[in-house]
């Protein structure tokens, strides 16, 4: 079988390596500090601080902390759990999206398909894609055997299922329901919801089954020996073709680390754009859409994100300049996502999806940039840094 060495190489890849654990730990501790500082400031009776701003800060930090803690738990439990976790986030975001956009009675059964067929299948395919490349345990290996999936990369299916098949299915199903009023508009709403909340976001966990390659030089053997004495590093032997392009399998790295890097960069990009916008934001990009997004914030944020992304290159398969480019692209896409969701919310006359229905945290508000950045980050990584493309 042609894929056997590939499987062996992938199996040797650690789920969480030292750099990843470092980054996870540092981020969680920093957020913990921010949380503690925020709580202490809240108890100060003095009116010396802006309490509205502080409350927003506290809420935001708490949301981040919870998010990263859940993500870390997902990483520790295993890849399947991480995919399921993202599946639930998609489900909830889609729920908010469809609640926000008015639909008609005739859309009911289509929506049922969207929620209970397309969303689960998309995440199932993303999950199986992972199982195929790296049979993690007896169950998933058995499952892949049963379906005879060992030779198929499900990328080919999950990357087109929603944009092609669901997009054809949705208008057809609405047509069958027999209500022609605002037909195109209704089809488009459902399609856009599915595309943003489910399809795009599912690219984030899909990173977990890429066969990552790197142009970085091999790590010094001393570090290798210290970590794995008994294992004479078999992955290194399966990279005979590496020398010609300088590209080799990234066996020492963790794909969870890369996913975490991506999410962190998206969040930091938002933070930097906000900070730059507050500091010297003057030219608002589209006051009708979002009054707080300025050119200064966007450019400054993207540049700073690129810089910080480069500084964190050691968790990724990217070299420093590559990491800078990836982080900048991520920041730009995150901005695009934020603007798009702002436009949708403005059109519907809601400020945050969180206030749409009282008492719900707006999941869609938190993941808008993530949704737009995920497909681009995934495809750039797949094209330049994986063995899937020659």
């Amino acid at each position, binding site marked *: 079988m042609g894929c056997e060495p590939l499987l062996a190489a992938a199996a040797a890849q650690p789920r969480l390596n030292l750099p990843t654990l470092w980054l996870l730990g540092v981020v969680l501790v920093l957020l913990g500090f921010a949380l503690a500082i925020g709580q202490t400031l809240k108890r100060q009776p003095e009116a010396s601080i802006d309490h509205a701003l502080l409350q927003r800060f506290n809420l935001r930090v708490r949301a981040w902390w919870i998010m990263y803690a859940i993500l870390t738990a997902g990483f520790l439990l295993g890849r399947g759990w991480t995919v399921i976790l993202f599946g639930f986030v998609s489900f909830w975001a889609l729920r*908010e999206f469809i*609640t926000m956009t008015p639909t008609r*009675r005739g859309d009911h059964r289509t929506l049922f398909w969207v*929620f209970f067929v397309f969303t689960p299948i998309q995440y199932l395919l993303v999950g199986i894609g992972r199982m195929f490349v790296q049979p993690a345990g007896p169950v998933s290996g058995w499952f892949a055997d049963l379906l005879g999936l060992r030779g198929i990369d499900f990328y080919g299916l999950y990357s087109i299922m929603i944009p092609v098949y669901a997009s054809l299915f949705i208008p057809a199903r609405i047509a069958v329901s027999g209500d022609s009023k605002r037909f195109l508009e209704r089809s488009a709403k459902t399609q856009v919801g599915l595309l943003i909340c489910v399809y795009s976001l599912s690219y984030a966990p899909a990173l977990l089954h890429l066969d990552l390659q790197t142009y970085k030089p091999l790590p010094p053997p001393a570090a290798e020996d210290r970590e794995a004495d008994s294992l004479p590093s078999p992955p290194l032997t399966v990279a005979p073709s590496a020398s010609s392009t300088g590209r080799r399998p990234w066996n020492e790295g963790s794909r969870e680390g890369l996913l975490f890097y991506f999410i962190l960069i998206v969040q930091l990009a938002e933070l930097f754009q906000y900070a730059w916008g507050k500091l010297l934001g003057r030219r608002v990009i589209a006051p009708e859409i979002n009054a707080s997004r300025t050119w200064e914030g966007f450019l400054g944020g993207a540049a700073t994100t690129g810089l910080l992304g480069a500084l964190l290159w050691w968790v990724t398969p990217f070299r420093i300049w590559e990491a800078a480019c990836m982080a900048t692209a991520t920041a730009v896409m995150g901005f695009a996502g934020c603007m798009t969701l702002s436009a949708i919310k403005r059109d519907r006359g809601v400020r945050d999806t969180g206030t749409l229905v009282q008492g719900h945290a707006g999941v869609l508000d938190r993941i808008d940039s993530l949704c737009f950045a995920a497909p681009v980050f995934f495809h750039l990584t797949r094209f330049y840094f994986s063995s899937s493309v020659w």
Partner: protein
Amino acid sequence: MNVTAAVLSLVAKLMSGCSVRWVDCQPETCQRIYFANHTSHLDALVLWASLPKQVRVLTRPVAARDYWEQDAVRRYIASSLNALLIDRENIKVHRSPVELMLQAIGDKYSLIVFPEGGRGTTDDMGEFKSGLYYLGKKRPDLELVPVFIDNLNRVLPRGEFLPVPLLSSITIGPPIWLETGESKTDFLVRAREAVRRLKDL
């Protein structure tokens, strides 16, 4: 409280993504009539499930006998929610729905009623039936609590059996009472307005 009811209310809460707001009104175990707009089969279940547990065990939804006694499953659900089934078709003189309701609540239970009668077909609320007026007249001590149920008709519209898990909300407003000398029509209009007002809060 029985297991079926607990499971049903959990499923209903998950499916309807329902958030509950109490506006100028607090959960109490005193006797109340919760009256709400009717948009979906899930209304009674979700409203009942969204009450706190201590209140829930003392609250009985009022439902139509002709619908809820059609088959064994519905009968079972109705009985596990401790629903009070009312005959809509053959109403006898001294067994009128209002008499039955008053008899059933005694001095302990609260009720959930939908004064529109049937579920509305349009987005707008229907006219209220007079039952609420007579309840308020015969038992002036009962708190009449308006409830507005939003978006639940999109979760499970009329004639559908598969729910779509959108987010809905329930707003519970300040109680009203029948004023002295207030006519039936005036009161029913005021009660309907009390429900509708909660939509914009």
